[in-house]
């Protein structure tokens, strides 16, 4: 049986006046029901563009998929017509957007916005869909749901708006839920509530989740598998344990190392990754991370290596990841490693 969702060597480029922006330049992963994939990387690494490509929400032009495919239960989403895509979007594949302040329509009542996908995809009547919306609001933990469904977005707090967004995404019981930085705009205590809610819903509905975030703590909390992205490319992929305890790629090491330690009483200097992320128009030759990498060698300028399976299920795009001596020596700093 084909996987639930499969992204296969996706290249999404933007054709701008300044040149071709290679926002996503070769990303592959697949997703099964009940699985949570964490996608991490810095701003501009292509995380959100990958998500929007799956939803087909990238305007074309300027965007264009120049290579690769996205398949849902074996059917290519890219080959579908607009009508078929609409049947998937918001129905089988739903998305929670980053900013709960701007992604809700300010002039419609919350209840109506939650009912909208039900009216479109399930042909429910006004009345039935409204009742279902109230039920959904209850499920996402909004008290006095029947009254609050009549509120407008500005009457909700940030946490409540994010809950309403989740209710919209859940309305049709999607198979795949894409959460793009769902908690970045929220305070930590509210973030904890929302993450708990998402996990609870997943346990109930058996949907697959793609959790896009730059917060490694959030990934550690929810993800089964982790995809690390850098400059539009996947640099490491593996189970959460693999990526956190036995990371293979120098960029992943850099990310883990630059976090303030939460478990030591001595304060040392932080170890940032030096330099700046590269421009996506003008990527360095060879490995995109080379100019910032502490371990780069001549061979790194020559060619860019794709993801290679180093141990079963654990992939890295670094030339030297296969050399276990190198990996051991270089990431000896990681006391998280066992």
């Amino acid at each position, binding site marked *: 049986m084909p996987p639930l969702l499969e992204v296969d060597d996706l290249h999404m480029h933007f054709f701008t006046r300044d040149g071709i922006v290679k926002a996503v330049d070769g990303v592959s992963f697949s997703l099964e029901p009940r699985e949570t994939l964490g996608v991490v990387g810095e701003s501009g690494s292509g995380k959100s563009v990958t998500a929007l490509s799956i939803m087909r929400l990238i305007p074309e032009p300027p965007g264009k998929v120049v290579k690769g495919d996205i398949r849902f239960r074996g059917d290519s989403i890219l080959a579908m017509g607009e009508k078929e895509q609409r049947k998937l979007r918001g129905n089988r594949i739903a998305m929670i957007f980053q900013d709960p302040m701007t992604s809700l329509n300010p002039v419609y009542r919350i209840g109506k916005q939650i009912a909208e996908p039900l009216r479109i995809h399930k042909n429910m009547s006004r009345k039935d869909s409204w009742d279902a919306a109230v039920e959904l609001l209850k499920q996402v933990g909004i008290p006095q749901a029947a009254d609050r469904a009549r509120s407008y977005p500005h009457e909700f707090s940030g946490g409540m708006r994010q809950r309403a967004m989740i209710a919209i995404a859940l309305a049709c019981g999607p198979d795949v839920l894409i959460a793009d930085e769902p908690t970045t705009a929220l*305070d930590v205590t509210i973030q904890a509530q929302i993450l708990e809610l998402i996990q609870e819903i997943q346990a109930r509905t058996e949907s697959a989740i793609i959790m896009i975030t730059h917060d*490694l703590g959030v990934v550690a909390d929810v993800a089964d598998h982790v995809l690390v992205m850098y400059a539009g490319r996947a640099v490491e992929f593996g189970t959460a344990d693999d990526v956190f305890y036995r990371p293979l790629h120098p960029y992943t090491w850099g990310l883990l190392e630059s976090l303030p330690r939460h478990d030591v009483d001595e304060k040392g200097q932080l170890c*940032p990754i030096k330099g700046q992320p590269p421009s996506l128009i003008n990527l360095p030759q060879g490995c995109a991370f080379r100019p910032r990498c502490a371990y780069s060698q001549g061979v790194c300028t020559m060619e860019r290596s794709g993801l290679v399976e180093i141990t079963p299920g654990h992939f890295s795009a670094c030339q030297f990841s296969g050399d276990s001596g190198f990996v051991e020596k270089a990431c000896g700093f990681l006391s998280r490693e066992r």
Partner: protein
Amino acid sequence: MSTLLKVESLKKYFHVGQGLVTARFSKSVRAVDDISFSVEEGETLGLVGESGCGKSTTGRCINRLLEPTAGSIHFGEIDVRKLRAGKLKHYRRDVQFIFQDPYASLNPRMTFGEIVAEPLVIHRFGTKKDREERAKEMLKTVGLSPEHIHRYPHEFSGGQRQRVGIARALMLRPKMIICDEPVSALDVSIQAQIINLLEDLQEQFRLTYVFIAHDLAVVRHICDRVAVMYLGKIVELGGWKEVYNAPCHPYTQSLLSAVPVPDPEKQHERARIILRGDVPSPIDPPSGCRFHTRCPIAQFPICSDVEPPLDIVAGGQRAACHFAKPFPIPEDKM
């Protein structure tokens, strides 16, 4: 070490509602409501809390970007609230500000050189040539190249812009810098660069920092002492080790337990306290202890009737809770 900044019973209310006629009946947002703390010379005091707790307002009151409603602020021997015009300007030489958003806080029509030299222009230091020299030097100090003085902000990334914001704050050789969320708009790898820079500069220029942030891990790393704020009040204040390893106030405890740690196993094993509901409105804050509406250990009627004072508790820090008790988070659970 001597006390550099002493804040006592500081209050800042914002009036909501408009017009002369309605002013008498208007309500006020109690953004900061009677807080006291002091900052020693050379230390870093962290102000943490969720959005709307009053941490930024406190920072702005300290250098009089906002006029406090009540209370006193002393900077060394100076009574900050009494300063007028020229003297206030002079005071602000010593107390500089680094802003959160490196995109909004730099004028897009000025070059880096002009931005960094502007404090010198305002305070009438040196000739144009001297100022340019000092600007170049300062850009070098913060890790940029002196040639960058002719470049504009849009040519640079967030991290580089924040370096310019820091250079500008340092130009007048201040004694204290108020850093308002200086790294929260930056990516983690860049965030670490800026934190290291701030630490190096603190040593080099003998600076005192008031560090405002919502990211508890960053505050833990950079601060000597930490004040945790909730709805305009300080609920816990103490050395970072005490506050992080043995928090006494239930709000601090839940705040710390809510931060996900980048370690799957520990994250799954941790005991978590998840608070219910949202922060109440500061227009009409809850009576008694302001946290009682969300508190997991609140007892009635005492918590809803009597406001707990910020008293010294077991660990040596201060906490404002009737039932303050250490809640050590064991090392392996963190």
